[in-house]
């Protein structure tokens, strides 16, 4: 069973989420502070983390950054705040998805499932290596090389890159990417895509401000250019 870590200071929310998500088949560990969450993750690494943003002591943003430094565990923010500023800051800090309270358990569970999916294009018959200019993508091995240096991507960043690579130069709209990478079947938040593309560019582009490979097609979406 996947191990889920909940970092949430409100006792009642924490308890109710634990009960509901245990019903969904997760082994849940819940803690009220970021510090305890980090300690827990270090000793007993979780497969998924839910983080609230307003926490006593270390706040949610710092908690996400600290978790990112430890590894690429998928992180979902569950917050009552939905200002663009907070959403973007949390995603920039390294969160993979962002849901606003109150979120239905079914919806949250769908988000978590999507983040644990394996990258597409890594199935049978997929080519072992895809090359886009300097970027070398090995879906099966889960590796990305820029030149001859290995680049470390999070699971979500890697899936985003694979989805774009799968299209061999065709454009994917933000909504299509939300559907393929994050599993949204209703209208999703396009900021999610934009921030992740920005993160991806900082890792695989020589000059992220003038990207050569992960390019924006104005009015349409994104594509991966060779």
């Amino acid at each position, binding site marked *: 069973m996947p191990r889920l870590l909940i970092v949430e200071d409100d006792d009642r*929310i924490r308890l*109710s989420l634990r009960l*509901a998500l245990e019903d969904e088949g997760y082994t849940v560990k819940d803690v009220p502070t970021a510090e305890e969450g980090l300690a827990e993750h270090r000793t007993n690494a979780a497969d998924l983390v839910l983080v609230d943003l307003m926490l006593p002591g270390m706040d949610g943003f710092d908690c996400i950054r600290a978790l990112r430094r430890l590894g690429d565990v998928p992180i979902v923010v569950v917050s*009552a705040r939905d200002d663009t500023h907070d959403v973007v800051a949390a995603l920039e800090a390294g969160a993979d998805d962002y849901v606003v309270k*109150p979120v*239905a*358990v079914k919806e949250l569970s769908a988000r978590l499932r999507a983040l644990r999916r394996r990258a597409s294009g890594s199935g049978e018959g997929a080519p072992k290596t895809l090359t886009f200019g300097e970027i070398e993508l090995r879906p099966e091995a889960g590796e990305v090389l820029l030149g001859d240096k290995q680049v470390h991507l999070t699971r979500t960043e890697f899936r985003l890159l694979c989805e774009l690579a799968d299209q061999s130069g065709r454009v994917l709209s933000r*909504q299509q990417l939300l559907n393929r990478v994050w599993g949204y079947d209703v209208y999703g*938040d396009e900021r999610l895509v934009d921030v992740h593309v920005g993160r991806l560019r900082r890792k695989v582009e020589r000059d992220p401000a003038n990207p050569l490979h992960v390019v924006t097609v104005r009015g*349409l979406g994104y594509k991966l250019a060779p």
Partner: protein
Amino acid sequence: MRLPRFRRLGLRARITTVFALGALFLSASLAGTTYQLTRQSLLDERERAAVRAAYFDAALVQQGLGGTEPDLAQVLRSLDTGEQRRPLIRRDGQWFARTADDGLTGSVPTELLTEVREGRPAVQRVHLRDEPALVVGVPLSDGTGYYEVSTLSELSRTLRVLATVLGLVALTTTLAGAGVGWWASRRVLLPLGQVAGTAGAIASGDFSARVPRDNDPDLDALAVAFNRMVEQVSARSEADRRFAADVSHELRSPLQTLSAATSVLDRRRPSLDERSAAAVDLLTSEVARFETLVTDLLELARSDRPAERRPTDVVALTRGVLATRHCPPELLEVTGREVSLGLDPRRVEQVLANLLDNADKHGGGAVRVSLSFCGDAVTLEVDDEGPGVPPDERGLVFDRFARGRAASARGGSEGTGLGLALVAQHVLAHRGSIEVLARPGGGARFRIVLPGGEP
């Protein structure tokens, strides 16, 4: 009757007209006076010259009449009168002229004849063959009268030229007056245009819009007063908004607990007894409604912000919304040239979803969704086959917590009463328009026009 029509003209047209009329009045009266004075002085001078010449000629004629049998024609021929003056002599009731009489004698008025016969010299202005002329009569000895007819055609030509020139000057001055009026009104109305533009921006939710300060103290007062008003209004609206946002925000945390706890209960529904299961159902549906209410309230609290426009494929978005709601794709009709428009996709999606919700709740489900593109705007229509909206309720359906009569009759157990208000707010944020019509064949038709904008 004329004043109201004048009022109907714009302020700018009115100012221009007043300037033009003022210039016309001034220039016309100046031109008229100038013409009259010039004409009078020229005429007087001509008259004096004519009289002087007539006296001189009369003296010569008097000398010529000295003999016993004077040849009058010879005397007249000897006068040096040039083209302008024609001499005549009347002696013993008979006219003598240089040439055959061509109506010249007829032009001498009777009063003048009488005056001269009685021994008084006289001058009179007459018309000779449609040309102004001057007749001078000088009495000679023994009842003979000497007359001279001077044509004034040269003078009248001069006066005509003068009148034309003065008329042109008056016309030019009037046009210049209109031009000055147009310029001045533009200058005066410029700040009003800025105020109107700012007010428009504020009406569409941009509370940061301000009227630029002006160097002119008169205009600056307007800018300052207007900006102060905007600040007051936006502060009040911001306070309202923040209150709604705070309330909803505080409701979110307990709602999260309720929602998660309810789902735990709902999962165990099959193992519950009938009464508990019914209670769980009630709880589940009410929690869901409560969630929607809080979400809608929060959304409404910030929906007066300007739309976050980005290039949006409305057709794909609509297809997506219909698909997730398991609506048949044939429901959608698209006309016009499909283009990507600068819209706020999150809001457009909510508009669509709420209209479809509304059709589900009050109209038995949508029967047609249409998108028609025209230029840089898209018109969205959602039709249902329900009872429709009575004309007197059409203005009210977009109010907050306004629910249709039919819904109230059902106890209003569905919906939050905020869906259409939210739709209206989203449309307003796009500077679009919304109306509810009767669908041909029965039912309601919600029509929304969303103009695209710069992302």
